[in-house]
């Protein structure tokens, strides 16, 4: 009853003008960043992070949720119309959407994408509301050795999900852990790796790392892009879209079938709960499963609405799933939820089993925002703004990136009113740029940074409990469970690699 009351309270909060404004504003920002090739909703949330110092935590979480949902959906706009996915999670949508665009059915493809996103996002949000409190109850049973094994499991899965670059994923993750060790030790009042700098004694905040790794490095990558993501403006101008074309025919929706939507949403949600998987993996797995189980697999790759529905339904459902491990265990599964964790930490809140039990009222508006964004804002935005969506890609790069640079750098200043944070952002930005150039996943860097301190703390606490005997990790049932789970994941993801049925490797993110 308490849970239901909190959820209803969350929906009621959305009716407050300020919260509503941030939800709608966040959704539009997410749509913009998702639609522009090269920008992602992750960057939008990264830019929002410094501003959360000045925002109420509920408002900040609501804005993050709506940006997240909008970014997942809006990547399909350019994926369909000009064959350049606005976000990595829309790559599978481009495979089916662009052929539809070529035969004059681009608006219908966008309609299918929006419908799939709407259904998937809504189901994902509902599952989050139901599962998160239950998962939190379960999480209360995990003790110190189990917490260490769980975090180790998350980090190892994040690393091995970097298919094709596991070594680089491991290096990036360990670098994140190393950066997190700068400052006061997690157990004793000992300063580490300060190199004589008094400013480093208090450690490195998540904010400069996020701004550096996702905003500054993006600027450097874009400056270095050498014509990548070049948009054919003539093609954009030639594309005329009418509002009524967005509504997918009922016959096609029936052909896709309710079961397909539900199945894709379930796949997306499940993938979302896995550390390191993200929207791309969700869309990839769901698309592959839809093709495998389709009555007409030969239609795939030639503009099949079923493929669009499966991919978009899954990547939006993933949004709900990704919040479960972050809120219940304090383990973010992807970079977006890692930044949302940063929002909570900035406001003095630490997610975990007790967090859901004691602070559900605080996060319930975020759950509600995910649901409302999916169910109402996705179709509404497409219908009202759809004909103008394509104009987004013709925005001037010089003004766009200059604005991003100012928001990112001045945002870094906000935290401490010190240019030291801005300098750190630049240092991390340059580091992340070189790492990205050589395909070291910066997502791993962030997740290593976020999870590293807990990994060390629980490891040392567990060893302290057992008087230095590491056997505690094998004799404690919860720890043993996660170690076995790690071995199972390692076997299926590394030793017995999944077949990709000729679809290629899903991109990171």
């Amino acid at each position, binding site marked *: 009853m308490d849970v239901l009351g909190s959820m209803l309270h969350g929906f009621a909060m959305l009716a407050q003008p300020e919260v509503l404004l941030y939800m709608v504003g966040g959704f539009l920002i997410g749509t913009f960043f998702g639609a522009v090739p090269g920008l992602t909703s992750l960057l939008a949330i990264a830019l929002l992070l410094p501003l959360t110092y000045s925002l109420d935590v509920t408002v900040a979480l609501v804005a993050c949720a709506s940006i997240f949902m909008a970014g997942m959906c809006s990547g399909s706009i350019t994926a369909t119309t000009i064959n350049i996915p606005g976000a990595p999670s829309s790559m599978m949508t481009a495979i089916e959407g662009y052929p539809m665009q070529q035969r004059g059915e681009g608006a219908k493809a966008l309609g299918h994408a929006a419908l799939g996103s709407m259904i998937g996002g809504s189901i994902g949000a509902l599952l989050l509301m139901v599962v998160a409190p239950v998962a939190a109850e379960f999480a209360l049973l995990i003790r110190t050795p189990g917490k260490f094994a769980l975090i180790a499991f998350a980090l190892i899965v994040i690393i091995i999900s970097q298919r094709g670059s596991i070594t680089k994923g491991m*290096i990036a993750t360990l670098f994140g852990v190393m950066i997190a060790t700068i400052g006061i030790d997690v*157990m004793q009042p000992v300063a580490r790796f300060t190199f004589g700098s008094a400013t480093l004694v208090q450690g490195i905040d998540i904010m400069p790392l996020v701004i550096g790794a996702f905003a500054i490095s993006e600027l450097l990558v874009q400056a*270095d892009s050498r014509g990548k993501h070049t948009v054919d403006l003539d093609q954009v101008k030639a594309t005329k879209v009418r509002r009524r074309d967005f509504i997918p025919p009922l016959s096609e929706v029936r052909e896709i079938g309710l079961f397909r939507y539900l199945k894709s949403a379930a796949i997306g949600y499940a993938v979302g709960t896995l550390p390191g998987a993200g929207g791309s993996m969700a869309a990839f797995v769901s698309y592959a499963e839809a093709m495998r189980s389709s009555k007409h697999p030969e239609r795939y790759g030639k503009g099949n609405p079923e493929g669009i529905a499966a991919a978009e339904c899954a990547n939006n459902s993933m949004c709900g799933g990704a919040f479960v491990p972050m809120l219940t265990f304090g383990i973010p599964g992807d970079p977006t939820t890692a930044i949302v964790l940063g929002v909570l930490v900035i406001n003095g809140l630490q997610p975990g089993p007790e967090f859901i039990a004691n602070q559900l009222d605080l996060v319930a508006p975020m759950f509600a925002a995910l649901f409302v964004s999916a169910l109402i804002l996705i179709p509404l935005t497409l219908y009202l703004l759809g004909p103008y969506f394509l104009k987004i890609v013709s925005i001037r790069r010089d003004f766009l990136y200059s604005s991003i640079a100012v928001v990112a750098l001045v945002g870094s*200043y906000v935290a401490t009113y010190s240019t030291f944070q801005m300098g750190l952002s630049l240092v991390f930005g340059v580091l992340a740029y070189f790492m990205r150039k050589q395909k070291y996943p910066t997502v791993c860097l962030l997740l290593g940074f976020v999870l590293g301190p807990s990994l060390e703390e629980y490891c040392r606490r567990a060893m302290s409990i057992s008087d230095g005997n590491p056997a505690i990790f094998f004799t404690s049932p919860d720890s043993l469970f996660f170690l076995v789970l790690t071995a199972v994941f390692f076997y299926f993801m590394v030793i017995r690699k999944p077949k990709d049925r000729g679809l290629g490797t899903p991109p990171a993110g």
Partner: protein
Amino acid sequence: MSLKRFATDGRLVVPCALAIITLIYLVDALQLGPPMRNGNMTPSFFPIVISVVTLAALAVAIAQAYRSLCRPSESEEAEPQGVSSKAIVVALITAAYLFAFDLIGYVISTLAYVFLMTLVFGGRQGLIAKLVGTVIITALGFALFELVFNVRLPTLWSQ
């Protein structure tokens, strides 16, 4: 494969640079004291373990990079691995902006920074539009932080 190519190719340079950073980290970790004391882990234990594992992974990455550079077909077909001059310029302009931001405040430094960034990303065409855009972006940034989020931005006279 020339020595110069080895020394400038990012595939090899990046893991080598990361290995140097890790070595410095490891040396500092060792200076924190022994990793175990009375059967308990000390503040140096975890950093030592992490840096040793990182060095092992970097050794693998360096070996992989070396092998791929030695394969003539791969090294010739691969994309250029250097850093573009534009990226260096953006990094330098940004560093200068941080210095100027502290010294002369938000308005003047941001005007200069935004204008230079528009030149880097958009070339030298349409300078009037760039100037107008620069003023608008700077004003919007000021409005966003100072007025909406109540952040006190540095000014020339507050230094």
